[in-house]
Each structure stands twice: as structure tokens, then as C-alpha cells.
């Protein structure tokens, strides 16, 4: 398959390292040669969606449970942050931290009853959860200000210097957060936790019989995913500065899911590239904007049909990276043996 060929170009570690550096340089210097704030905002927005995709990737990609509740966790994080920030004058970073934790708690509360469910049961449960969160936001007026929403939400302030979209501050905050989230995803993926999730996706019963406590692992994954989504919500709120119950819609959850499917379940690079393309295309191809949800829908269908592992997901052919100090007799260090002959 041609696509496969394109996607599996092997390049030496050194080249890819240089490429990575260049990429970093480009990303960091973006604000200095941008044609306008619009560009920065879109870039920040893409970053936020990348974080969201990475968060969903932990439940859906690693653990194989399709969740439509990501927007709800965003809402929890965003509201907690906004309430603390506007009504109790808590600064960005502490408020953001609390926002994450509350979102995590919400994840736990939803996770406990639903972790036994799978497939569409889980989808409907998470969809329902979003509806519940919306209703709470609408009715708990003393806290959330009901349908009037919360305005003038604060931006991060570092050493008395307010980080706005204009001065690129929000972009850099996003960049740092994204880096952190990428690290978290990577750290999980390459640990026994990540392996366990992967095993659960493959065969829950078998992993259970190998001694993996599948339920606790699933809940933990769900909680972490919720926390990250909550943090994305915080970023979103401090960027738009106004949130109301209708801000976080099921459409958002669908877009996030779409990014995960498109980028490739389990792949970290995939999430970022997925966000890049799927969020920027309605901006670039404005005439397509009307049809964007049709496009998102088609992407879901076509990916499932022709490349369920997504653009960059699925099996790689890199040798497995062994921890340092592991000895292999009858085997000279170097490229692994690929494919059984």
C-alpha cells in the first residue's frame, strides 16, 4: 500500500534529531514572524486541541474505550478555574491546578460505575455525563452564574506580566503545556502502566489472568485523561475569557475523537498532526467550512474502513527499545530482526 510506504520512511536517529531541533526552532520563533494575532490564536487553539486529543488518546488510544465525554471534563476544569479566578481572585496557576484535580475527581466519579461498561454503553454513558455537566452548569447559578456564564476570566500573569494572545504569551503557555502533556503521554506509553492498558485493549480477560488489575488501571487512565482534558479546559477558558454552559458542546467531543482516530490511536505524533490538520483545515479551506462536520464524519468512516490504526498509529517497525544494562546473549546489539522469516 502506497500510503503505508510513505508513512514508514525510516530515517536515521541523527537526521530525525536535527529535524526535531528545526521543528522546535520553528515553533518557538513563530510569534516573531506571524502575520497577525489571528495566526497565533489559531496556533494556540490547535495546541489546545492537540492536548485534548492526547488526553483522549490515553482512554481511547491506549485503553481502547471510546469516550464522548472529553468536552464535559473540559467544562469541569474550565468552570472550576473560572469560578476560583473571577469570584475568589485565585491566580492562574493555582486555580488551574485545582481545575485539573476537580476534573480528575469527576473522571473518577464517572469512571467507577462505567468502567465495567464497554463499547457503545461507554459512549452513551459519557454522552449522558456531558449532558449532566451542562445541566449542572445551567442550574447551579450561585456558582456558575447559570446561563449568563462567567466573563472576564483572568489570563496567566508571570512576574506581573500578563500573558495575552497579542504578546504571544498564551501561545508559549500552550507550547509548554503541550510539551508537558506529550511527556506524560510518552512516559505512560513506555511504562508497565501503558503496557497494561495496551493489554487491556487487546484482551481484557487475558490481562486479568496475567495478574493485571484491569479495573484500577482503567479508572486510573480515565482519571488522568480527565485531568488533562480539564487542564485544556482551563487554557481554553483563559484564552476565550468567557464561558457559558453551551461553550463545551458534543461537537467538540466529536472533533477530539476524530483527531484521535485520524492521527492514529495510541500514537503521540499522530495526535499533534491530527490536530494540526483537522483544526486548521476549516480555516485554510474556508469554502469547506460549511461541510466540515461532514468531512469529520467521513474521516471517521474512511479511517475505520481503510486504515483503522490511523495515519501514524499501529505497528511500527522500529526495534523495541530495551532499558539500559539489559544483556542479550546469542544476539549482537544493533537493528532488530523484523518480521518472521
Amino acid at each position, binding site marked *: 500500500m502506497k500510503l503505508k510506504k510513505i508513512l514508514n520512511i525510516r530515517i536515521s536517529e541523527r537526521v530525525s534529531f536535527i529535524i526535531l531541533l528545526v*521543528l522546535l526552532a*520553528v515553533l518557538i520563533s513563530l510569534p516573531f514572524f506571524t502575520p497577525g494575532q489571528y495566526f*497565533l490564536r489559531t496556533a494556540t487553539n490547535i495546541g489546545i486541541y492537540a492536548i485534548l486529543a492526547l488526553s483522549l488518546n490515553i482512554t481511547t488510544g491506549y485503553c481502547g474505550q471510546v469516550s464522548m465525554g472529553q468536552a464535559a471534563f473540559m467544562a469541569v476544569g474550565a468552570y472550576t478555574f473560572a469560578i476560583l479566578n473571577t469570584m475568589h481572585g485565585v491566580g492562574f496557576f493555582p486555580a488551574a491546578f485545582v481545575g485539573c484535580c476537580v476534573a480528575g475527581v469527576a473522571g473518577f466519579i464517572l469512571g467507577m460505575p462505567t468502567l465495567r461498561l464497554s463499547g457503545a454503553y461507554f459512549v452513551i454513558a459519557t454522552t449522558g455525563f456531558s449532558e449532566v455537566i451542562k445541566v449542572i452548569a445551567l442550574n447551579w447559578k450561585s456558582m456558575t452564574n447559570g446561563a449568563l456564564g462567567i466573563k472576564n476570566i483572568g489570563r496567566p500573569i508571570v512576574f506581573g506580566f500578563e500573558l495575552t494572545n497579542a504578546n504571544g504569551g498564551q501561545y508559549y503557555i500552550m507550547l509548554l503545556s503541550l510539551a508537558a502533556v506529550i511527556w506524560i503521554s510518552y512516559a505512560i506509553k513506555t511504562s508497565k502502566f501503558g503496557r497494561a492498558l495496551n493489554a487491556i485493549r487487546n484482551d481484557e480477560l487475558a490481562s486479568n489472568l496475567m495478574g493485571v488489575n484491569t479495573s484500577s488501571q482503567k479508572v486510573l487512565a480515565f482519571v488522568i485523561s480527565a485531568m488533562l482534558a480539564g487542564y485544556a479546559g482551563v487554557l481554553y477558558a483563559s484564552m476565550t475569557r*468567557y464561558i457559558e454552559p453551551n461553550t463545551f458542546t458534543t461537537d467538540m467531543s466529536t472533533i477530539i475523537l476524530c483527531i484521535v482516530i485520524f492521527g492514529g490511536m495510541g500514537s503521540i505524533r499522530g495526535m499533534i498532526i491530527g490536530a494540526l490538520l483537522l483544526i*486548521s483545515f476549516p480555516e485554510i479551506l474556508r469554502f469547506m467550512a460549511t461541510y466540515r462536520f461532514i468531512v469529520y464524519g467521513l474521516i471517521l468512516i474512511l479511517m475505520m474502513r481503510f486504515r483503522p490504526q490511523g495515519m501514524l498509529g499501529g505497528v511500527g517497525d522500529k526495534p523495541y527499545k530495551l532499558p539500559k544494562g539489559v544483556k542479550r546473549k546469542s544476539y549482537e546489539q544493533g537493528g532488530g530482526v523484523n518480521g518472521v522469516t
Partner: protein
Amino acid sequence: MKKSINILFALLLVVALISGCGTSSTSGSGNKPAEASANNGSGNGNVASEASQEPIRLAHIGPLTGNMADFGQHALNGVQVAVEEINENGGVMGRMLEVVSYDDKNVGEDAAAAAELVISDSSICAVTSAHYSSGVAMVAAPLYQEAGMAAISPSASHPEYSSIGDYIFRNNLTEQAELVYAFQMPTIVDCKKLGIVSMMSDFGESFVHGFEELYEANKDKLGYELAVESFFVDGTVDFAPNVAEIVNGDCDAIIFVAEYNNLAAFAMQYRKVDPDAQIIGLMTCYNPELINMAGEAVEGMVLYSVLNPNSERPAVKNFVDRYVAKFNSQPDFIAANAYDNVHMIAASIEKTGSTDREKIKDALYEVEVTCTAGELKFDANGDAEKTAVMFKVENGDFAEVPDAFKLWDDFVAGL
């Protein structure tokens, strides 16, 4: 290993986005909205050539796709009518007007992105109709404020909207103004027991709250009792529970606080149960579609609007004729507001003699223009002072009920 794709995509995006911003203002011509701007540009090509200057560009941002598309489209129609009219009369300072339109899908993040796009485009000197829902408008408003670009909303209803900054204008009845009219209606239709059915939206909540305060203040003088308050959420089609509450409180008049498409559904379900009670609508219910949808069910209901398409006032007549000629449909209040906005900005530009964003803002507080809303001017908050007229739905059309409304003080005194 696949990092190469990474950077490839990243660069692709960088390029694409830059080109995206570059073209998007003109690329509007790709979709419905701005093809109009294109053709009215061409329509006056000759005029433009003799006034050998590039046109003055104004932005329209509103939902052109999605659930609220028709509201955004109506506003755009109004803008286009005004632009054509002004250009036919030689434009502003001999320069043509040109409207660039953006779709915000009535979604906050898209609205903000569009706003940034407009702000960063130095050729655009003001936003002539900014967004539809308050919730969306309030995400973009701070951006206009910071960037120092005047933005007039034809529809925002959130009480605190215009207080966001001095660059933020609203050419729509403020909530207080709506209350003045809405509060008189039960008395006018002399009801004994009033029921309120309201959507749980920013407008709905603060409206009901404001209404209650007025009611509590004048309880003893009023001839009626506020018997029922019934709420529903956006997207509801089944009003049975609300209907039951109203009927149970045997109200003889109902104030319905939401857009016309909700009222249509409510009215149809309500009439099945109770054919008599008087339905009272707000301005957002004034829409020809209402009658097409609900037909018999809304016959005899009363409501008010800032625009009376059948009015003999020349300004209105002129606008309505042009609008009907161009789109062969009746304009609604949002179209009229958007139309007026363009005239306000045009007047400000004439006044200051420049297209400087800040100067336009300052001028907007001073100019007074005769347009569909009569003598239109903005007060210190940036809210327009507008007057509404009452309508009654009679055999399938909105019929004006002349001078039904009193000035507030007279009304209170008259109780």
C-alpha cells in the same frame, strides 16, 4: 522515524495558514456571504473607477452556517442593502463601501478567530454587525476592545455586553428597554393571571429576573397576578410539561421569552389544550417565518418590534422596498439593525473624514442618523436608544397596533 512527516506537515501548515490569512478576507467570495460583496463591488465598478480610491471596508461577522445561520444571514442581508444604497449615492467621501463577511458558526472560538482576522486586517475599519448570540459576542468583544476597533452588535442582549468597553456598541433594544415594553403588554391586553414561559438562556434568565423586580415593585397597582413561571432549555421541542404548568395556573396571558422558532412549537402545542389565552411575544419572535410555521396557533397573539415593515416612514419604506426587491422576503429586526449600523458608521466616517478606527469610535458617540429606527444615536454605554411598536397577528400578518405603548413614567403613573 516518522518525524520527517511531522515537520513536513508543520511547514505545510505554516505556509497554508499564512496564505489562509492572506486570502481569507477575499476568500469570503468563495461562500455565499461575500459573493454579494463581490457583486455589489462589480455593480458599482464604474463609480469606483471615477472615485479612484480603494473602497472602505467593513466587516460582518455572524453565523452563516449551523443552527443560527438564518439570523446571521438576515443581518448580512441588511448590511448589503445599506452598502448598495450608499454606494449608489456615491459612497462615503467618494469612496465605495465594501463588506467582508466571516462565518463564526455562532461558536465562541470561531468568533474569536474571525475577530482576530478582522482586527489584523488593517484595511477593515470597523465591524458593522458583530455576531448573533450574546454568549458568542462576549468572547469576541474583549478582542475588539483591546485592538481598538469599533464593533456594533445588531442582536446582543446580555445586560453587561456594552459595558465591556467603549469600542463595544449595541444597536438593539437593551434588556431594560425590552422590559419597558414587555411589562406594559399584560396591562394592555388586560390580563388577570400572567404566566411566563422562558428559555434558560442569558437573555431569558435576566429578563425574567428583571420582570419580577418590576412586578414586585408595582404589584399592588397592577391589575394582574404573576401566577406561573415555567422554564425550558435550548433545543426543547416538547413543551407539554410547560403547557401543563400554565394551564394548571389557569393563566389568561403568557409572555414567551425565546426566539420565534421556539414560540412556533410552543404555540402549536399550547393551542391544542387552551385556545383562548393571549400569547405575548418579544421582539425575537417578530419574524415572518413564525406565521408560516405556526399559522393558526399564533393568530391573535401580540408582540413588539423595533421595525414595522408597513410603516409609512420614508427611511423604513426605502429600506423595506430595497430589501424585498433584493431578497424578496420581509426583513426582520436584525436585518434592520444591521442596515442602520452601516449608516451609523458611514455617518461617523463622513464626520471625522477619516477611516481611522479610533476616530470612528469617537464619532459613533456623536453622530445621529435618521434610519429605520428613527433618530438613531448611541448613549454613553454604547447602547442605541430605540423605540418599539406593538403588533397583533391578524389573519396571517403582523398588524401594527398604533401608539399602544406609553413612556415608562406615564405608564407607571397611569396604573
